[in-house]
């Protein structure tokens, strides 16, 4: 008989676990007690151990994925056993295991691993008795903390059953988002979340779930209840970010052009806490004063070659930024709500002031273009922007933006990030300043740059390292042709 492997609770309050490593491959022979996988919570790793002998037939989630406690994540069986009913025909969709379990509700048909799952009647209390939770026999009864959390750890078939009950009675219909019992239509949410939502009058459809697959969990409801308007604004903002990401994705995203980074627990914690503080884009700013004496010399020598070679300071800055971004994909990134996207290609949005606002035409693949191309393209794009002749695909798809107000005599400013981009560089004017050089005062051409960073994606040191690279390139502009 097949043995189910489910996500286990590393603590009574845990709602979901992130699988960080599989220790067995599909097809590997496993014995009871073998380590199958490692699950992360906070700073702790727990091994999931096989509770039956056989062959690891199917792995249902990938390394880096999270799954709710109790969800089926793998199946152990004999080499030739038909496990389709358990593994949902091999589909890795998170709903599949729940459906498969629901199809076999009788406790007698449960595999040996879940011997502790009750055969008793459907629970009618809000918090089921602790022993109904899918834990192995050695596991002690949880302490009082489990009382408030017990429902969160309810096995999936339990959730579905009770969800269906509520739908059929209609008593909780409003909080289910739709009255429909079609699983595909339903707002995905945990039972505890639904209960809390109805208690606190929170509309589930207005909430962006933070659980796997956008599932709404207890924490989301608590946050929404604490700040209803902010939560809705965030949801709307997330929608907008996705909407603006979509055309970008069409234009620039073919496989291999970027790398999607699953969110680690610490990354999720950083994102949530910082967004709570300054939402919805928790921004911080890094300023550096760069010496542009050598850029000025280089520009002068280029211009001496003739008017057709004329380049601006900004062209050189764009070139340097593109080169630096190439080395720092973690700054050349988008925040996509459930993941970060690091781009391998560099498409720089260039903020251009127009009569009634601003627009950011894009220099695509700027890192592969020479100074002449960048200079010509930026001039043309700026002119077409002012003439309102840009086509949508010319001002969407940036992976990073640069804004320069130096021509207005601005020494230093901070620019506002254009979501879903994770950063924007504000460039001030070039001016002569008295600075100490080797211990003596000297007059040097200097320029301030300020990087605005979305802290959900970029940490202080990450942004600072990008600026270090940019400084090296701007202060040694020969590296741009190296």
């Amino acid at each position, binding site marked *: 008989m097949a043995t189910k492997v489910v996500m286990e609770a590393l603590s009574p309050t845990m709602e979901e676990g992130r699988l960080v490593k599989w220790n067995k491959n599909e097809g590997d022979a496993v014995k009871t007690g073998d380590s199958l996988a*490692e699950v992360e919570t906070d700073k702790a790793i727990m091994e999931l151990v096989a509770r039956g002998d056989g062959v690891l037939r199917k792995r249902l989630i990938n390394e880096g994925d999270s799954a709710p406690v109790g969800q089926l994540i793998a199946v152990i069986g004999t080499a030739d056993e038909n496990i389709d009913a358990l593994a949902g025909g091999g589909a890795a969709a998170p709903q599949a295991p729940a459906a498969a379990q629901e199809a076999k509700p009788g406790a007698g048909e449960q595999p040996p691993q879940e011997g502790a799952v009750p055969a008793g009647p459907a629970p009618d209390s809000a918090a089921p008795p602790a022993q109904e939770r899918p834990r192995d026999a050695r596991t002690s009864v949880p302490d009082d903390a489990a009382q408030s959390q017990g429902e969160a750890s309810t096995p999936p078939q339990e959730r579905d059953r009770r969800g269906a009950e509520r739908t059929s009675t209609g008593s909780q219909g409003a909080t289910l988002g739709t009255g429909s019992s079609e699983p595909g239509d339903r707002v995905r949410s945990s039972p505890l979340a639904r209960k809390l939502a109805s208690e606190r009058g929170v509309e589930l459809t207005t909430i962006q779930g933070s659980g796997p697959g956008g599932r709404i969990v207890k924490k989301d409801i608590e946050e929404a209840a604490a700040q209803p308007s902010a939560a809705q604004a965030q949801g709307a903002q997330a929608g907008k970010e996705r909407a603006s990401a979509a055309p970008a994705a069409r234009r620039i995203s073919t496989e291999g052009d970027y790398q999607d980074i699953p969110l680690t627990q610490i990354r999720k914690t950083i994102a949530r806490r910082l967004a709570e503080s300054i939402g919805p884009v928790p921004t911080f700013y890094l300023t550096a004063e760069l010496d542009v004496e050598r850029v000025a010399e280089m520009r002068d020598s280029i211009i001496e070659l003739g008017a057709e070679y004329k380049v601006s300071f900004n062209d050189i800055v764009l070139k340097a930024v593109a080169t630096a971004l190439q080395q720092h994909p973690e700054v050349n990134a988008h925040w996509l709500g459930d993941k970060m996207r690091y781009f391998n290609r560099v498409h720089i949005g260039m903020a251009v002031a127009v009569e009634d606002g601003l627009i950011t035409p894009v220099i695509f693949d700027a890192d592969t273009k020479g100074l002449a191309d960048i200079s010509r393209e930026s001039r043309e794009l700026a002119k077409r922007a002012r003439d309102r002749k840009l086509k949508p695909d010319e001002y969407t798809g940036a992976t990073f933006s640069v804004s320069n107000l130096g021509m207005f005599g601005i020494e230093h400013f901070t620019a506002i990030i254009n979501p879903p981009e994770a950063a924007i560089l504000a460039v001030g004017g070039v001016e002569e300043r008295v600075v100490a050089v080797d211990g003596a005062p000297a007059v040097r051409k200097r320029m301030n740059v300020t990087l605005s960073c979305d802290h959900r994606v970029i940490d202080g040191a990450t942004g600072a390292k990008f600026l270090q690279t940019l400084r090296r390139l701007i202060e040694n502009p020969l590296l741009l042709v190296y």
Partner: protein
Amino acid sequence: MPSPQLWVVSLGTVPYADALELQRSVAAQRISGEVSEDVLLLMEHPPVVTLGRSTRNANLTASPELLKARGVELFEVERGGDVTFHGPGQLVGYPIIDLKRHKEDLHWYLRTVEQALIDTLEALGIAAGRNTGYTGVWTGGKKIASIGVHARDWVTWHGFALNVTTDLSYFDLMVPCGIPDVTMTSVARELSPSSMTVSKVGDVAARAFARLLSLEPVYFDEWPTHPAPTNRARER
């Protein structure tokens, strides 16, 4: 019925690879029941950088060549958490605890390890606490101890690293624990001037662990080859 014990094993300086092998073997024996009591291995390591399961490459800012030039070894291990450094002057503790005997809850366990270190620091005159969302022990906004654990069958290994007289410049080689902008500190820096040593702090920490876990501490200078405690236990 004798009260349950905590075998406190003070090993001095141990190369990381040897310590890894020892704690894996002790954990396996704790799981099988060959070792019948909980264990706390206390030691120092020669300079080493270890990468936990959630390490992002970007958080190790130094190249393997630079690490080598500074005489720092590099290990990738099965504990939770991100990158960290161990070296002389740092008290490293590997509690090998059967949580089935205490509480099957890794969050509780992480908080207990933190509390033991907070109690230890308090006994030394340093006010330390937690930083919600960032496992570890902090004082005045600086991180003084790191924690990363691994468990199987509810038996833990890996553990904590408390800076006593650690050369903190080693932490510049990385983004410690994957937390940007973190400043590390040490007992010596907080108490300066201080005559604290790793071994003195280890004694205090062992008592704090034993008290929090309601265990009777029994002391050893090396891992007892025979699993039963012997008369080599020292009085303190």
